């Protein structure tokens, strides 16, 4: 891992990953949409609303995956002072925030017809809303300091402290009474979901993950370019 602490080597890696991520994202999302909207059955209880699952669940998974990546990268930043780890964390924040917003919004659109309400203040929904605020707080702190290094440090500490929320989200449906259904894919006794519905779900999840890597690659390259711009401007001034 330390090998990639070198920005030049890291950018080379990012450039190599980017077209693969883009290609996999486009192909799996196209196939995923086909299965989600056309080649999969309606649920015997939920009817056609079950299709919302194919955009809701992957968004929620990515919300947690991005946060874990951001917190992990922040820990590397603080422990080893690797500048590129911080670039990854900083580039991940808006992507994770977008996925979290989508998880909340699509969940609301699913909750209204199935639960009879757009929103309930239960453990799962509230902890995901807190996740959104953690992302927004991270981005606000990151940009709030004139001294960039201090802002980065404060944001990294927030990301690490906020990581306690991730297992709370995951297990909230087991620990507290809730309207939200418990896990049906990632569970010890195997997925409790029919293959005809698992196929679009897995395709969309792979698509969202590849999409994250694609957008991350774009944002990391832009971020490293801008720090070069700042360094050159400083040298010129």
């Amino acid at each position, binding site marked *: 891992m330390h090998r990639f602490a070198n920005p030049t080597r890291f950018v080379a890696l990012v450039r190599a990953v980017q077209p693969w991520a883009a290609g996999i994202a486009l192909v799996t999302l196209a196939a995923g949409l086909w299965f989600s909207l056309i080649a999969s059955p309606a649920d015997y209880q939920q009817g056609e609303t079950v299709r919302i699952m194919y955009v809701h669940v992957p968004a929620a998974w990515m919300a947690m995956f991005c946060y874990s990546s951001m917190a992990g990268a922040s820990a590397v930043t603080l422990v080893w002072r690797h500048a590129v780890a911080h670039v990854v964390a900083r580039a991940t924040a808006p992507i994770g925030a977008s996925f979290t917003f989508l998880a909340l919004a699509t969940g609301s659109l699913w909750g209204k017809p199935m639960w009879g309400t757009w929103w309930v203040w239960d453990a799962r929904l509230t902890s995901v809303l807190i996740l959104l605020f953690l992302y927004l707080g991270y981005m606000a702190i990151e940009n709030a300091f004139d001294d960039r290094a201090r802002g980065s440090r404060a944001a990294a500490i927030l990301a690490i402290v906020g990581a306690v929320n991730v297992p709370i989200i995951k297990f909230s449906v087991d620990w507290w009474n809730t309207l939200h259904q418990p896990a049906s894919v990632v569970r010890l006794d195997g997925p409790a979901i029919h293959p005809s519905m698992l196929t679009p779900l897995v395709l969309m999840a792979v698509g969202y993950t590849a999409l994250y890597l694609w957008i991350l690659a774009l944002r990391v390259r832009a*971020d490293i*370019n801008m720090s070069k711009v700042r360094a050159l*401007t400083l040298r*010129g001034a």
Partner: protein
Amino acid sequence: MDMIRDYFAMGGYASFVWPAFGLSAVVVVALLVVSLRNLRLSEAALAELRHVTLLSEEETHP
């Protein structure tokens, strides 16, 4: 024709299913477009600055 209308009606849940997919598409595409644009802008800024730096170095060390 009825088949198509039935399909888009989503069993009466059209006003929940389509906004969920539409909103997801809008947010994801917007994020992608903004990120692509920022990369292009950063590349342009860097290229310009390198050009200026190169010129000024030529002036000081002819």
